């Protein structure tokens, strides 16, 4: 795999669990019932399934970046715009593509476009990320190609 503009990041795919939304509502002290009460979601005209917390959607993208980089310490920055809702039972795919690669002396620093798509549905978020890869690693990957 060559780490260069156009390199696609391995996707991270997961099914969104309503039970996990309940856990996050408690952990985040988030009282918004759209994350745990489908009756409220329906009453608000937002469908019949609970709606995932936005930061959890962001976390799926972080998971994708961690799995690719191999170490959470290599993720330097992430910026996203929230575009659409993700609902309980949805299957989502986090993905990305390298847009540029630069060196900072010790690392190859990859700028990436990233996103989270609902399978069969809309793009839920989009943004950009900066990930530092060890220079030697990038060279090995290029040499092995």
């Amino acid at each position, binding site marked *: 795999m060559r780490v260069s503009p156009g390199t696609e990041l391995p996707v991270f795919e*997961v099914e969104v*669990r309503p039970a*996990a*939304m309940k*856990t*996050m509502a408690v*952990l*985040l*002290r988030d009282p918004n019932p759209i994350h745990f009460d489908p009756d409220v979601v329906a009453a608000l005209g937002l469908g019949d399934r609970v709606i995932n917390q*936005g*930061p*959890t959607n*962001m*976390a*799926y993208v*972080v*998971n994708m970046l*961690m*799995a690719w980089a191999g*170490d*959470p*310490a290599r*993720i*330097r*920055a*992430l*910026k*996203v*715009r*929230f575009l659409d809702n993700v609902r309980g039972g949805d299957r989502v795919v986090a993905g990305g593509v390298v847009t540029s690669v630069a060196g900072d002396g010790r690392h190859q620093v990859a700028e990436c476009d990233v996103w989270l798509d609902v399978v069969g549905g809309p793009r839920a978020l989009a*943004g950009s990320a900066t990930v530092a890869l060890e220079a030697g690693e990038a060279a090995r990957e290029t040499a092995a190609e």
Partner: protein
Amino acid sequence: MTLDDLERLVGVEFPVGEFTIEGYEHWLTADAIDSPPLPAGVAHPMYAYYAGLGGMGLTLDELFAMVGSSAADGPMFGEAGLEFREVMRVGETYRVEGGITGAARKTGRRAGVFDIVSFELRVVDSSGAVAAVSTNSFVFPRRAA
């Protein structure tokens, strides 16, 4: 809230708060967001976000009131940005400081008048180093503006 009032918000600092990454909460969070395995003692990078929002020195309701709004007005997440400077660790307590960094009034054809308010939260470790910076923006509908 007048435009002058809105623009005067820029530079307002929040009270300082703190956040501890409790082991059991981290375990539950990592499970709920389907995290890949993490190195021992290393917190999921999303704690840059969770610690910032969870530890800032005012509640979201207080933040909304500061900008002349409330949860009932339907404020929405706009963008979220994370800058990761140091690996965050489970069990560590972080100081959270920050304030409002931007405020602008806009008019959309469908949305009408709305304000975008941005704020930055710096997550500081026990040595005084900034471990992470979380930047967020909320969109506030201003139907009566």
